[in-house]
């Protein structure tokens, strides 16, 4: 079985999918990435799908699962390079991939991750996201009873 390589570049893991993946290969990638996130301590994952001429519901779900797993492991995932025809098809298929960050190419994906990390460091409720935080604290959620 083929395997999709995972490359470490600084604080980012880069995956470029260059083959038409069998379902098993996609599942293997999911495991490999989780292992590499933990072993490297990377905080960002970029998955380049510019070589994929289709993304069906299985691959779409795998990407969403990878994003969820990395988030639990304190890493943010950005899917980059989706072709226009793939985007049109995905939406028509009914797969809007909620919870997945996207960028047009690897470079913009890296910028996105760097920006997020910066805000995090600044952060702890500091500038930038202040409005959203305040909004949330002013309106406590009352559970329906």
């Amino acid at each position, binding site marked *: 079985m083929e395997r999709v390589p995972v490359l470490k570049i600084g604080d980012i893991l880069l995956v470029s999918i260059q083959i*038409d*993946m*069998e*379902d*098993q290969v996609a599942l293997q990638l999911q495991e490999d990435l989780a292992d590499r996130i933990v072993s490297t301590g990377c905080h960002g994952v970029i998955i380049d799908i510019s070589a994929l*001429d*289709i*993304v*069906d*519901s*299985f691959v*779409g*779900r795998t990407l969403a699962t990878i994003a969820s797993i990395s988030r639990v492991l304190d890493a943010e995932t950005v899917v980059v390079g989706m*072709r*226009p*025809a*793939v985007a*049109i*098809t995905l939406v*028509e*298929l*009914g*797969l809007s991939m909620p919870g997945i960050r996207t960028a047009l190419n690897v470079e913009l994906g890296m910028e996105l991750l760097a920006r997020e990390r910066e805000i995090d460091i600044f952060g702890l409720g500091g500038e930038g996201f202040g409005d959203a935080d305040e909004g949330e604290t002013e309106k406590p959620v009352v559970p329906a009873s």
Partner: protein
Amino acid sequence: MTQPSDRIEVSSDQDVVRVRQLVRTAAVAVKLSLVDQTKLVTAASELARNTLVYGGGGSVEVSRADNGRRQGIRIVFADQGPGIADLDLAFTDGYTSGGGLGLGLSGARRLVDEFIIDTAVGQGTTITVTKWCR
């Protein structure tokens, strides 16, 4: 009028990949637009996986279709599996009897121009889809 076809027996993940490649080649040959190629190959991938996972394997036949006005691609997915008991439910977005997202059948139908399903419990399932050139 239907022209000679290509047939793939689907019994593994690898065969699903072969179906995608065969459909892509056929779609390019008949000059479907890039978006329509992508939609058809995606639909074929969903349906071939259904044939494998739910039908327990089967066959996929790809042929060129011609209705006198337009050319297109017709694909027939056939299995001898358990069949589908409740079609309305099976076509509901988000419903799945397996571990999937429940988008395969309903999503594939949205991606093609014609979609015919013939199924009965215990008799297997045959799905025929067609995509026409614009």
